């Protein structure tokens, strides 16, 4: 019995030990596994769980609205539906593609778009755009299909209600709503606001069951431009007409209010529709007013005349013999457009004589001419608050050659932008003071222009020089000289024409058949309401001079804008401001 009892007890003990061993072994393995999962692979697994159950999404804030100076909407963000695919774990790529195929027709998906979606499905992406910023009609039809893993979410789409109006100033935005050009790019930080962050919670099948906002988005601020919608329209319409008529490569018009430096209109033709951004070519997207360098030709005589008078080397009635119609400088012959005879200094500029202006330039001298060009801020950006502005090309004095005085005097060997030449004319219009350009305002301006002068600015030339140049030279250009086509009935106009031959860089010669025709001026001449530059590149047919091509554009735009601004003609005292009104039948 005892033996049997011991033997039984021994077996029990042995089994207990074996059982305990296996139990501890199992526990040990479990512990090891836990250490592996919780300690060694903690970071990776935590990340995997979060990515499976949580999804962080940026909340794009509403982009600020862009207004013209009177509060007209130029650009605004509106909600737009986006169709997306958020695959579940049990979704096979083939099933997802079947659903995408069902959306193809509704969303007008191209073959390229389908391929892109397929590749993202095969890459196992967890959030796939099918169609961004679709129409609400398309979104309703997609929602009606009630397809698994297909969702319609809301984004914002940039809308430009006036179409191509002021396209080059406004620029455009990318599909993600980031500014790409124009004021959209310049003021992107201000317009875009601050992105928010949301957390989407999903179950094991990646179905969304809850969401919360981790960071509230901050909407973008609105922006008020100095542009006037109506003036912009007038400028674009007349410019487009001129470019078409003369078959010019491109054209640009900038209109400013000289006293405040505010840009009232900035047009480039051909234009594009920012609703279909980006434009079909980079060339089409260029704001020619600030992004195109060109040799200004005779328009630059503004600077030569200012230098001559400011340095006092030439009197207004001083005589210059231009009867030969040509002049030789360092082996080069420079011609006038016709033989002009003997001219006074004023007549030299009024008739735009190259011969006379070169003689004036030679009298001014290299250093004084160079310094005046510098003072007029050529070779430097105007500082207009738009991106991509060119500085022009103005060579330093040590690079000047024997022809440089002559060339610079008549607007060659130097390249400028239309904005720079308008800035130079504005210095004359503002009685010698430079008022920097600006494109934005701090508030809306429903009544009209801000009060005129005084606004502090840098003095470039004396008030006397500017006033005399206006009354004795630039008014004469329009009244009796090359710019007669810029005359506006009832108003005194001051201006300067420009016709520059274009340089063939491969041959190194100026071409007789390719020109840049231009006109810059302001009106009324004594207290200007507006200043304007018109540039047309390579006008075709027989009319190629600035006075024939650009000056009429100035006249047509100026006449209409003055009418719009209710400015009374000065030169006919019996007449007042133009108004047109409708009378009701009850009125006598």
């Amino acid at each position: 019995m005892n033996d049997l009892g011991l033997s039984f007890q021994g077996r029990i003990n042995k089994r207990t030990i074996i059982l305990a061993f296996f139990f501890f072994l199992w526990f040990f393995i479990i512990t090891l596994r836990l250490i592996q999962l919780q300690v060694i692979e903690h970071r990776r697994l935590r990340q995997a769980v979060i990515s499976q159950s949580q999804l962080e999404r940026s909340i794009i804030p509403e982009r600020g609205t862009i207004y013209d100076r009177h509060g007209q909407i130029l650009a605004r963000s509106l909600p737009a539906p986006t169709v997306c695919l958020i695959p579940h774990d049990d979704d096979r790529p083939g099933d997802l593609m079947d659903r995408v195929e069902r959306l193809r027709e509704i969303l007008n998906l191209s073959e390229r778009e389908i391929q892109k979606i397929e590749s993202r499905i095969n890459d196992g992406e967890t959030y796939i755009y099918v169609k961004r910023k679709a129409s609400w009609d398309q979104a309703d039809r997609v929602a009606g299909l009630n397809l698994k893993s297909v969702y319609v979410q809301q984004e914002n789409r940039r809308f430009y209600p006036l179409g191509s109006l002021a396209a080059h100033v406004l620029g455009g935005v990318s599909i993600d709503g980031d500014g790409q050009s124009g004021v959209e790019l310049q003021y992107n930080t201000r317009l875009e606001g601050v992105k928010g962050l949301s957390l989407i919670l999903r179950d094991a099948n990646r179905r969304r069951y809850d969401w919360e906002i981790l960071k509230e988005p901050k909407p973008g601020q609105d922006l008020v431009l100095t542009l006037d919608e109506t003036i912009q329209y007038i400028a674009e319409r007349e410019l487009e007409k001129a470019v078409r008529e003369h078959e010019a490569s491109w054209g640009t018009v900038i209109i400013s209010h000289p006293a405040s430096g505010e840009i009232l209109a900035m047009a480039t033709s051909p234009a594009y529709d920012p609703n279909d951004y980006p434009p079909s070519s980079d060339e089409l997207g260029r704001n020619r007013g600030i992004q195109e360098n060109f040799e200004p030709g005779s328009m630059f005589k503004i600077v030569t005349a200012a230098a001559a008078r400011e340095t006092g080397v030439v009197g207004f009635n001083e005589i210059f013999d231009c009867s030969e119609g040509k002049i030789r400088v360092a082996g080069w012959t420079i011609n006038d457009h016709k033989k002009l005879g003997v001219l006074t200094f004023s007549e030299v500029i009024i008739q735009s004589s190259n011969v006379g202006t070169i003689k004036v330039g030679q009298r001014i001298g290299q250093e004084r001419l160079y310094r005046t060009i510098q003072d007029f801020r050529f070779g430097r950006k105007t500082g207009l608050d738009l991106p991509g502005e060119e500085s022009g090309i103005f060579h330093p004095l040590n690079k000047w050659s024997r022809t440089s005085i002559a060339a610079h005097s008549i607007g060659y060997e130097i390249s400028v932008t239309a904005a720079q030449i308008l800035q130079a004319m504005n210095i004359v219009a503002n009685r010698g003071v430079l008022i920097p350009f600006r494109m934005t305002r701090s508030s809306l301006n429903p009544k009209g222009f801000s009060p005129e002068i005084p606004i502090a600015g840098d003095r470039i030339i004396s008030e006397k020089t500017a006033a005399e140049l206006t009354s004795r030279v630039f008014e004469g250009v329009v009244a009796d000289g090359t710019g007669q086509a810029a005359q506006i009935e009832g108003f005194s106009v001051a201006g300067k024409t420009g016709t520059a031959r274009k340089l063939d860089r491969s041959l190194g010669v100026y071409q007789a058949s390719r020109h840049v025709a231009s006109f810059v001026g302001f009106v009324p001449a004594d207290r200007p309401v507006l200043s304007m530059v018109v540039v047309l590149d390579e006008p075709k047919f027989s009319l190629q001079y600035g006075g024939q091509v650009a000056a009429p554009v100035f006249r047509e735009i100026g006449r209409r804008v003055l009418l719009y601004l209710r400015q009374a003609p000065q030169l006919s005292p019996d007449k007042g401001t133009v108004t047109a009104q409708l009378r009701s039948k009850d009125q006598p």
Partner: protein
Amino acid sequence: MVRKKLPKKEIAAAAGCILLAVATLTFYVWHQAAVIQIGFQTSRLEERRAGLEEEIKKLETDKAALLAPVRVDRIAREELGLVEPQPEQLIYEDTRPANSHE
């Protein structure tokens, strides 16, 4: 078996307590339900307000598009047959001279 008779006062007190508890619970549930209901209503109204604000913005933008100068000009010329007045057709009244500014 002797049946013990409970005092009426105690029964009444117990019943009162139960009634109070039930009433409190009922009020609490009703209150919670009302709060949730109001929450839903607030949420719906907030959504509606946001929707209306979006609608206003859309209408303002549509208005801007409809009043676009290019469109107004086209309608004036092509549909209404209007033309720009010639200088001699203009009437000048109540005007300011060109060298004054607003």
